[in-house]
């Protein structure tokens, strides 16, 4: 089992995975994962490709519900109301309204840039044009995209460059003021400037929302996250404060992984 070592255990939790297992049909992609997520902190998830990071992330907004044959075990306790996100009694739509997500591949809708960002608001029944206008602009600004697209809000989202598309998706996720945001390698398609601005944005967002981010870029994890978890083949090998995980990991595996990269 994993050991959780941290200094400020008194921090309020936003969510907590308890004995979480996940199965794609008969293939077990997550094995008994336990992990706290602290409120208004950035937690990053690192690990080799195929280790189950995306799978784990997608448990939080019940994305796996969309496909038959997927099965959760265990629980994700969501604070402050102690809802078990994985409970069949909990409506996945409520879950997704409170927890938004940015995917690994940018997936703008084949709609205009404006409508892409406004979508989350429309889903929530917002129809006042002025409110939507404001939120769209704010979200696009936060996603460092406003300058580039402000004159072409009615163009198709797909006409943007790869990086612009990803920022568009971030803006979409931001527009609805979620409590927890899931990022699945959000900057893998971005250039350094955009990456920097997204990182900055994440740091800013921390004031308001809790963030769980999957990244391959260990420097990024080191730079922006307060906590880091290292996964390996479906298991949570190590979790701790970022500094501690990067500087003095408890596990040999973690160290190997990190140094194999940093060394």
């Amino acid at each position: 089992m994993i050991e959780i070592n941290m200094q400020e255990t008194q921090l309020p939790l936003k969510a907590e995975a308890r004995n979480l297992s996940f199965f794609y049909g008969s293939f077990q992609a997550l094995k008994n994962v336990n992990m706290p997520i602290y409120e208004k902190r950035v937690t990053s998830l690192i690990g080799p490709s195929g280790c189950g990071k995306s799978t784990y992330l997608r448990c939080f907004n019940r994305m796996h519900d969309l496909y038959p044959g997927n099965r959760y075990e265990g629980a994700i306790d969501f604070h402050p109301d102690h809802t078990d996100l994985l409970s069949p009694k909990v409506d996945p739509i409520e879950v997704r309204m409170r927890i938004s997500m940015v995917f690994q591949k940018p997936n703008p809708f084949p709609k205009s840039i404006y409508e892409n960002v406004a979508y989350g608001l429309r889903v929530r029944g917002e129809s006042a044009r002025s409110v939507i206008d404001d939120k769209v602009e704010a979200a696009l600004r936060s996603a460092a995209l406003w300058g580039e697209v402000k004159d072409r809000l009615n163009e198709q989202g797909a006409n943007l460059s790869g990086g612009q598309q990803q920022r568009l998706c971030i803006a979409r996720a931001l527009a609805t003021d979620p409590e927890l945001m899931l990022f699945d390698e959000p900057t893998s398609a971005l250039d350094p400037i955009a990456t920097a601005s997204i990182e900055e944005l994440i740091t800013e967002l921390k004031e308001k929302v809790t963030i769980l981010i999957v990244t391959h870029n260990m420097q990024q994890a080191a730079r922006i996250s307060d906590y880091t978890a290292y996964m390996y083949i479906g298991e949570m090998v190590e979790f701790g404060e970022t500094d501690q995980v990067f500087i003095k990991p408890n596990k040999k595996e973690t160290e190997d992984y990190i140094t194999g990269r940093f060394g």
Partner: protein
Amino acid sequence: MNQQELQALRTMIVAHKRWDMMFGLLGILALMIALMTFTALFADMAINGLGRISWEFLTSFPSRRAANAGILSAWVGSVLVMLVTAVAAVPLGVAAGVYLEEYARKNWVTDIIEINVSNLAGVPSIIYGLLALGLFVYTFGLGQSILTAGLTLALLILPVVIVATREAIRSIPQIIREGAYACGATTWQVVSDHIVPYSSAGILTGVIIGMARAIGETAPIITVGALTFIAFLPPAPFTGEPPAGVFDWLFAPFTVMPIQMFNWTSRPEAAFLANAAAAGFILVLMTLAMNGLAIWLRYRLRKNINW
């Protein structure tokens, strides 16, 4: 890469491109066969029928004298029946397609529905006529009316619309759905905001093909009681004596273009054959006009959506 290898490469490419060229020609040829057939048929109808096409032809009722006979009741009937068909078949077909792709769990119920749908596509149209006669005319008491005929044809083309809808929906990348669900959308919101809009081009293809078929059908319509000689029009809303309600026309007796045509083709007098050709010509024009909107819409939609 040295000159020799480059030469070999080029030879190979030339060979490959020859296939490409040949297929391109084959494609043009195949397209030509299809289009020439259409053109030939259309031109033939035009040559034989054009002499008969006039304002009078469009505004007269059937008559024993070929020269006086017109298609007023027929084309009005066809238009109204198609209206009912479209209004019934499109929402039903799309709803069924959406259900099967977005809602249904993949179990035996879905399998049965799926097999059923494609099976229905192969049921001869006359059987639909027999079914509708028993069901709509006698059981539901809708009478031998425009409504019955429209619903019958709607049943007939439903499989095409459903299959086209399903295939169009299937081609939407999963990641788009995920994006929408992740925004907190309900299944219905995903369907109405994304699935249906993005698949509408494909749905329209199904509608176009289906409606083209429906407008040319005779046998089932005769079975449900379409007439051949009818020298009056269905009541327009709020006209006539006593004033007709908005939907009275739904229950009016009627005839349709293909019936008029079939009747004329089987008449001995050559003049009626010209009438039939003229009616055929107008029928194709009607199909084109009816589908024109759908074709234009599809053209617009397909330009915008690319994965």
